[in-house]
């Protein structure tokens, strides 16, 4: 990043000497979407409708299923365990990650389980989860929390480890206690990493949600997918998948926006021109 005396008057970004505004990046994204949809439409229309579908057919299903209320009901049914599971994962993952990152002995004691847990093939454990938690709301939350916990915890851990030693020394030089260093230096410095953990967690939580709806009580968006698939209604099966993807993109954008609001300094430090 180039330093600028006036600070506030920096151009948004500079590529090859020409300023590129946020708007033209948006244009690129929109163009990319149009090309992709056209491509899928052409390919999809050539295929047997049992094996594949295409954007306009899916759009028709989306409208129909929204109008009869099925999609909205299923979405809300899925959303509730998703929110509870994510909140639990964040409430457990952030403090534990901070603890592991801050204390070398805690890291030595349980760091290995967190790393191993991140790679755990959870789908294989679902039968066990059903034995433990049943088939209802509880097991869905448990599956979502388990999947989401690890990326959130690992990012908080990494964030704490990445706090520059010199920033901590600033606190030490002003006789800060361990607790003050944690609260006034380590935690604020880790915020961008914790937010990245949340973003990765959203993806994991959604996977957890669908897995739970497939393998426990068949409900929500996952339920529509599996019922439609069983009756070879491919367009109907793909409609909730589109809803899920749009939802994930929206939540990720929301979190990125929140990160810019909470830690505007981080983006400036890491911007690659």
């Amino acid at each position, binding site marked *: *990043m180039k*330093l*600028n*005396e006036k*600070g*506030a008057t920096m151009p948004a970004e500079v590529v090859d000497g020409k300023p590129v505004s946020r708007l033209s990046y948006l244009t690129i994204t929109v163009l990319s979407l149009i090309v992709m949809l056209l491509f899928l439409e052409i390919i999809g229309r050539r295929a047997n409708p049992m094996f594949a579908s295409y954007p306009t057919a899916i759009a028709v299903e989306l409208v129909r299923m929204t109008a009869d209320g099925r999609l909205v009901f299923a979405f809300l049914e899925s959303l509730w365990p998703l929110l509870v599971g994510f909140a639990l994962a964040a409430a457990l993952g952030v403090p534990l990650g901070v603890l592991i990152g801050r204390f070398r002995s805690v890291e030595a004691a349980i760091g290995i389980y967190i790393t191993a847990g991140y790679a755990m093939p959870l789908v294989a454990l679902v039968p066990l989860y059903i034995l433990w938690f049943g088939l209802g709301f509880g097991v869905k939350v448990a599956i979502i929390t388990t999947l989401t916990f690890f990326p959130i915890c690992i990012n908080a851990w990494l964030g704490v480890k990445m706090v*520059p030693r*010199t*920033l901590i*020394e*600033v*606190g*030490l*030089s*002003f*006789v*800060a206690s361990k607790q*003050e260093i944690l609260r*006034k*230096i380590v935690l*604020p*410095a880790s*915020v961008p990493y914790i937010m990245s953990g949340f973003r990765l967690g959203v993806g994991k939580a959604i996977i957890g949600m669908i897995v739970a709806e497939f393998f426990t009580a068949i409900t929500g968006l996952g339920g529509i997918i599996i019922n439609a698939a069983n009756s070879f209604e491919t367009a109907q099966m793909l409609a909730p998948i589109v809803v899920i993807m749009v939802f994930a993109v929206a939540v990720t954008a929301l979190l990125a926006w929140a990160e810019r609001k909470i*830690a*505007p*300094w*981080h983006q*400036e*430090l890491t911007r690659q021109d």
Partner: protein
Amino acid sequence: MAQQLEIRNVVKHFNLKHGGKSTTVKALDDVSFDISQGEIVAITGPSGCGKTTMLRIIMGLETASSGEVISCGKKVTGCGFDRSLVFQHAELLPWRNAKSNVAFGLELMGMAQGERDGVADRYLAMVGLSDAADRLPHQLSGGMKQRVGIARALATEPYILLMDEPFGALDAQNREDLQNELLDIHGQTKKTIVIVTHDLDEAVLLADRVIVMKAGLVQEVLTVEIPRPRGRLAALRGNAEFGRKRLALWELLHEERQSA
């Protein structure tokens, strides 16, 4: 003049681990010197001579393997508000604006919000940054950042200001501006200042005494007999005493390089 800082036979070993084999490196080997109240002392020497380690031990960020540091009559056992450190790259907290960074030490001292606002404003004004109070560090230039770093160190009103190559990362013009400002601040506050630098001009222009270190030892102490106030640095470079001591310092460091 009262002795503000006494360094008594300080030795510092570091244990370096290399593939399971640990070797001991002696960074400081029996260093002693005194610094008087209101004095500016520069510590210089080649890379690895132990000058930064010495400063960190004075600050209390590192402990001596043996020997002691006495600051304001008390043995140093850790960091304390009698001393403040200006870091090499300012090290401002990136999520706090300039004013809040200046107030950081006051906050840790337990000063009430209203009072620390007033103090922070005063020290921001001292370094000429009242207008930039609300800016975050990434919106400040390198020179402005280090001004905030100096204001932060001064705000807790330490007796001794310790500076670790504070202007080394700045361009020539900014460096000279800040050196001038440091002399002004010294004139106003009469702080005791210890500045580690590898810039010979800086050492002679600013300091009353220059401590030259070599391989963990004090090799020589040069006294710079230029009266204060010294005026603008640009004019000071023409001073005969500056020329003599600059040359003496250069020769000391040069002869060292030949023998090494």
